[in-house]
Every structure is written in structure tokens, then in C-alpha cells.
């Protein structure tokens, strides 16, 4: 499975294109918009610019997909149904809470 990255000269050309192309941002600028984009807080024009970058940049596309999967994974990993079942709580903890209330 290839995990190759574009060579340095290719990245330099890409960087120059991204900096000069109208309605375009660099990858570094793209990075600063990610949270606002995912929270639907980008004004329309910035959203268009963000999505345009996403279309032409493989690295940012891959990055964003992995970033989104990370968020999803974090949420799902902690959504442990057994954690919400009261019967799994030790009786002595319940007794301690109720005793402290009566004290």
C-alpha cells in the first residue's frame, strides 16, 4: 500500500499555485477554517473557498477525512452502554452517598 507524498519540487509548485490562484487558500490557511467549517459557521464565500481547496488538494482531503473519523471514533468509544446501567454501581457507593446526605 503506497503512502507516498508529493516530492518537494512538486509541493513547491503546488504552494505557488495555491498562493496565486484566485479564490484559493494555502493548506495552512485551510487548517484554520476546519473547525468553523465542520460547525457550519463559515460565511458562504469562505465556505466556497474552503470546498474549492478541498477539491484540488489530496492531502487536505485525506487529512479532513481522518480528522472527521477521529471525532466520530472518540464519541463512539465513550458511548459505552454499560456505563449508564445503575446496577453496575457498587452498593457501598450508593450507601455512602445516602449516608453522607443524612449526616
Amino acid at each position, binding site marked *: *500500500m*503506497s*503512502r*507516498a*507524498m508529493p516530492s*518537494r519540487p512538486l*509541493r*513547491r509548485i*503546488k*504552494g*505557488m499555485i*495555491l*498562493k496565486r490562484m484566485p479564490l484559493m487558500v*494555502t*493548506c*495552512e*490557511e*485551510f*487548517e484554520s477554517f*476546519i*473547525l*468553523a467549517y465542520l460547525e457550519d459557521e463559515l460565511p458562504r464565500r469562505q465556505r466556497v473557498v474552503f470546498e474549492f481547496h478541498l477539491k484540488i*488538494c*489530496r*492531502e*487536505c482531503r*485525506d*487529512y479532513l*477525512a*481522518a*480528522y472527521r*473519523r*477521529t*471525532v*466520530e*471514533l*472518540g*464519541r*463512539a*468509544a*465513550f458511548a*459505552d452502554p454499560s*456505563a*449508564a*446501567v*445503575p*446496577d*453496575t*454501581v457498587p452498593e457501598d*457507593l*450508593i450507601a*455512602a*452517598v*445516602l449516608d*453522607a*446526605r*443524612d449526616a
Partner: protein
Amino acid sequence: MGVGCRLRMPNLPRRSETLFEKDQTGDRDSFDDAALVEGLRTGSARHADHLVRTHIGPMRAVARRILGGDAFADDCVQEAFLKAFRKIDGFEGRSSLKTWLHRITVNEALMKLRALKRLDERPIDLLMPEFDENACRIEAAWPTLATTEDILERESTRALVTSKIRELPDSYRIVLLLRDIEELDTAEVAKLLDITQGNVKVRLHRARSALKKLLEPVLRGEVE
């Protein structure tokens, strides 16, 4: 506490017998929020017992997520319940009892973290995305991206995910937990942590980016 001091609950039942209904699955009492709150305000042990048994599981889970170890989490849950019993007169019913208790628990857990001086500010620069001198992202290609279902299917990789979250410095981990897992909004998190909303957003993004880096082998399907 005198009855005259209590705040009015708009949805309180008018007949006292509705306060004590047996649930259909067993002997345990079943109360709605308003009935439970009214009972707690009268100092009823039966209502207190019901409150604790109903909510201690989820509250303990929250405390454990924030504090880690069981001992700290259990202390935190006790403190949270005591606070809830003391403040029950101030419960206005604007949120559910469950949400109210969740907030109290989060607050208690954060106070405990501060007391333990664990809200450290370690930098996470090494886990941040990389860019070259042309402002281009340096990111190896992702020919495969494992699905959440595949990763969480196995107990070993599920445990790895939660352990990687715990590896984040607390000041980032807490923001990630409160926003992504406890589902508080930015304004609430900012208030709880006494930082600006902008700071919450910066920390959240950095925490997610760092976690992505830590989880890369799992996400690429390289961990068996």
C-alpha cells in the same frame, strides 16, 4: 427547609399519590422529575434513594471520563450528590434533572482536577499537522481509512482509543471531552473552564488534531 422558601415548580403534580407510583418492572418507585424534586424538597429518604439509584451510573461514568481513576471519580460523585441535595430548592426545571445533575458532576470533576493541579498546559506541538515552507500540508496518503465500527468491534482497539484520549494533556483533553463527548456547547465550556470561547475552539481543534495523530495506526488499520 420551610415550604414557603421553595421555588414554584410549574409541573408539580397536584395529588400526593402521584408521587409514589411503582414502576412496571419491579418494586422500585417510579417518579417523574417534578415528583422526584418535590419529594427531595420534603427531605424524603425514599426519593433520595431513587434519585441516587437512577442517576449514579451516568454520573459516575462522566466523573470517570474526566478524572480517570475510580477513587477520584467516586469522591466526585458523592460531592455532586451532596451539592444536588443542598441545591434542590434552586432547581427551576428549566432543564431535565438528568441534565442538571450532569452539569453539577462536570463542575465537581473540574474542581477536583484543579485541586489535583492536573489541568496542565503541556504543549502538544509535536502532534500538530505539519506544513512545509510553501504552506503545503505534509500528509502521507491514506489508501484506507478504517471505519468506526471496525475499530470499536474489537475490545483491544476500543481500549486503545480511550487510552489515546487519556494521553492528551488535560487542558486539551477536557475541552475535547466536554465538547465532543459530554456535548456541552462552546459557551458552556468557556464558562466552566473560565477561558474565552475562542480559546475553547482553538483547544478543541488542537485536541482533535493531536488525537488524530495519536490514532493514525488504528485509523490506517495497522493495529490488529
